[in-house]
């Protein structure tokens, strides 16, 4: 085992950081931290090019691998969205986009963005890089399994991309893959396309189970001395809770994928009712399509929180560093994250109000959905109160944080509309839903991702990104994204349906034509303005301002490594020892406006530090 648990020598005394019983050391040593429970991790060292850069077991390299692969899939998803918008805004312009192609783009865009881009980026990309650094470990607890998990993800992406090239093309069933249509002719890709999609998802689940085990156990069992759970940055809390959700929600997806594969390949009738196809009665019978929906959304709703919770955690840290203020109500923020995570398993059928499920379910799920809005709103209030009277640095990172708050509030409020059964019935399957989930799951977390890249680029590369380009990038993205999705709410209100290839000549949606053109132009502009970001990254890699150590003057551990960028093993000779939480900013009486987590109390004796 990579942790050689030495039970002989080390006395195990569970001791909370808040214990004042004096049992911690009668020597009145204010810098005392409990001794190590475990011996040093048996770290793997790669020596060849392949073991250092390809099949690398170092979580930092794996994190960058996940990041690059996820961004690649995200670019594919972005291009697909342009094709969709071209069709919606200027229907005759591109003859290549037939109805079949359009539905394939819709499906692949959705699946890529939700699963392969956002989940992989937050958990695999940010999780792998930041978790060991922020908890004070040298690496993840199972580096070999971690390495395998990335290559599983890579293979899953390859299988997914392969579905573009098989006969029939990729599946066009919508990212929700509802049966019976998904596996019947009439839906694009109902042969090879859907099979490859289901296989790819299964591989993804297996890979992320492996990765998820690493993240959870590193956070729970491999923290450094003095690092209690309540001294971890909120980034870690967000990623940790999201990983726990992933471990428990992906099984439902795996089960539904397996059952749909069997329905297609072996002719079983798990989801397939007695059905007529072009006048011919098929051999299926007795199955239940709504069962698939329940299984899928039992996964699907926690999935959207898997995307949102890391964003919540990261933005809290970005705000507190760049506003030089402790996050307001840290403990409640932690409990809110955990509460949202737990509740997310009890709200799934608010995606199914119009599915024909048991009508009484609406009462239950609308209630739980409104309950889950409470901790979410609490977090928004706390972000705002954190900013109140803070020493705000209006740099690119802070702009993206503010952009997150604005777009998330917008998307969250429309969620309340949709969470109520009666209001949802006319709005379901309209552009209102599309506007809602893009705001809250697309734009808001994307703002956090971009802000996080500007924030942690100096750590990963040792160079700063260009501020001026960053600000141009922000304004284009933020104003552009609002221009795209705000008008969509109006389209939804007047009843424009989603997943429609064209608007037809309906008299009541003539106003939609101009609106769709506007949205398309905005989308193309925003899409192309991301080139500013890519240019910034590529150029700054070589001629960016050297960052030095801890350029943002942050408190959390990842900035406190002896070498920047952090080397293999992260901490050099000695593991760090933690004395406080990462939010000691502008503490009265302190010399600097920040006190790092490793600063012992004896060095800041004059400061009015709270016990954390």
């Amino acid at each position, binding site marked *: 085992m990579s942790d050689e648990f030495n039970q002989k020598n080390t006395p195990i005394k*569970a001791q909370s950081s808040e214990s004042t019983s004096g049992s911690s050391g009668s020597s009145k040593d204010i810098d005392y931290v409990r001794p190590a429970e475990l011996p040093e991790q048996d770290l793997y060292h790669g020596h060849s090019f392949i073991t250092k850069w390809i099949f690398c077991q170092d979580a930092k390299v794996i994190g960058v691998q996940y990041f690059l692969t996820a961004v690649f899939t995200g670019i594919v998803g972005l291009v697909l969205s342009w094709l969709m918008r071209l069709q919606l805004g200027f229907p005759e312009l591109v003859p290549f986009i037939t109805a079949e192609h359009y539905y394939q783009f819709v499906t692949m865009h959705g699946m890529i963005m939700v699963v392969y881009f956002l989940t992989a980026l937050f958990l695999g990309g940010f999780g792998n890089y930041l978790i060991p650094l922020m908890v004070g470990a040298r690496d993840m607890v199972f580096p*070999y399994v971690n390495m395998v998990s990335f290559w599983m993800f890579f293979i899953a992406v390859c299988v997914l991309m392969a579905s573009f090239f098989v006969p029939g093309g990729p599946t066009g069933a919508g990212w929700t893959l509802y049966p019976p249509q998904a596996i019947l002719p009439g839906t694009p890709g109902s042969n090879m396309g859907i099979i490859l999609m289901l296989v790819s998802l299964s591989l993804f689940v297996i890979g992320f189970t492996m990765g998820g085990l690493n993240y959870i156990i590193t956070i729970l069992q491999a923290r450094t001395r003095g690092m209690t759970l309540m001294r971890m940055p909120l980034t870690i809390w967000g990623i940790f809770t999201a990983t726990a959700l992933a471990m428990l929600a992906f099984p*439902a997806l795996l089960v539904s994928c397996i059952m749909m594969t069997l329905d297609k390949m072996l002719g079983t*009738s798990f989801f397939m009712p007695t059905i007529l196809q072009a006048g011919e009665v098929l051999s299926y019978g007795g199955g239940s399509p709504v069962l698939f929906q329940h299984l899928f959304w039992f996964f699907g709703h926690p999935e959207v929180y898997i995307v949102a919770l890391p964003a919540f955690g990261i933005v809290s840290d970005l705000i507190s560093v760049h506003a030089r203020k402790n996050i307001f109500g840290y403990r409640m923020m932690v409990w809110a994250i955990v509460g949202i995570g737990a509740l997310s398993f009890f709200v799934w059928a608010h995606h199914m109000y119009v599915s024909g499920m048991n009508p009484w379910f609406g009462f239950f799920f609308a209630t739980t959905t409104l309950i889950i809005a409470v901790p979410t709103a609490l977090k928004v209030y706390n972000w705002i109160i954190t900013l109140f009277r803070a020493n705000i640095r209006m740099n690119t990172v802070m702009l993206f944080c503010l952009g997150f708050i604005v777009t998330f509030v917008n998307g969250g409020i429309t969620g309340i509309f949709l969470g109520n059964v009666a209001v949802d019935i006319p709005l379901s399957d309209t552009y209102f839903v599309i506007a809602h989930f893009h705001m809250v799951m697309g734009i808001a977390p994307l703002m956090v991702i971009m802000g996080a890249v500007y924030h942690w680029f100096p750590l990963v590369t040792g160079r700063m990104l260009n501020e001026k380009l960053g600000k141009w990038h922000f304004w284009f993205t933020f104003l552009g994204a609002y221009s795209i999705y705000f008008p969509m709410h109006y389209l939804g209100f007047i009843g424009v349906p989603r997943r429609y290839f064209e608007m037809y000549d309906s008299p009541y949606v003539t106003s939609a034509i101009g609106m769709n053109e506007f949205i398309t132009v905005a989308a193309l502009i925003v899409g192309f303005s991301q080139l500013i970001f890519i240019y910034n990254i590529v150029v700054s890699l070589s001629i960016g301002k050297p960052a030095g150590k801890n350029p943002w003057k942050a408190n959390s551990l990842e900035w406190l490594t002896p070498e920047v960028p952090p080397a293999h093993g992260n901490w050099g000779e000695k593991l760090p020892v933690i004395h406080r939480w990462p939010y000691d900013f502008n503490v009265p009486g302190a010399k600097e406006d920040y006190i790092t987590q490793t600063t012992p109390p004896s060095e800041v004796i004059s400061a009015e530090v709270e016990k954390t």
Partner: protein
Amino acid sequence: MSDNSLNNLPGGFKGMSQDMGSDQTAFKGVQWGKVMMWIFLLSDTFIFSCFLISYMKGRASTVVDWPNTSEVFSLHVNGVPVPLLLIAIMTFVLITSSGTMALAVKYGYEKNRKMCGWLILATAIGGLTFVGMQVFEWSKLIHEGVRPWENPFGAKQFGSFFFMITGFHGTHVSIGVIFLFIYARKVFRGDFDNGKRGFFTTMKSDYVAIEILGLYWHFVDLVWVFIFAFFYLW
């Protein structure tokens, strides 16, 4: 494994809040590998739960009668149909193998290599027997016309759920059997005493690995308890 210093910690819920509030580890005295297996098993529990929930939903929704499991799964001994005989034997075999595995873990920690190794082998043989009987059952039912897409006894979904659920469980048992044989070899060779580094992970071997494999094996038995109750008995 409990030792003196773990016993000094407060137990119960007070102990739980103190453990969770302390630094470094949340689960005191539990090796990383063991926590990994437990959390993996939690995830696997959700997979099997989703399968069984789908089965419940599918069976409760049929307007066609569900086959009578006592009859379908009976074996004919001297012309007399004995209901669920094969299943009873399979249950006996799996529970026994769970018992031998628990003993193997005990002897492993006591460094008794011979007893440990033989008990792991006994567990593996038990698992192999179970899979063999499951294969026999499958072939018997297929011979009688049960297919994933239809069957002569009742609702279509009977065959689908049967093959899928027992197939998944049988696969889990088979993977366990493979690991059991590998670990038996490691025990007899003394790898756990020497701390020999593993082929893939290059991590040092330790007797806790047998406890971890034991957890997996008991989980497989646990799932069988539920499948037996819900699918065969209900």
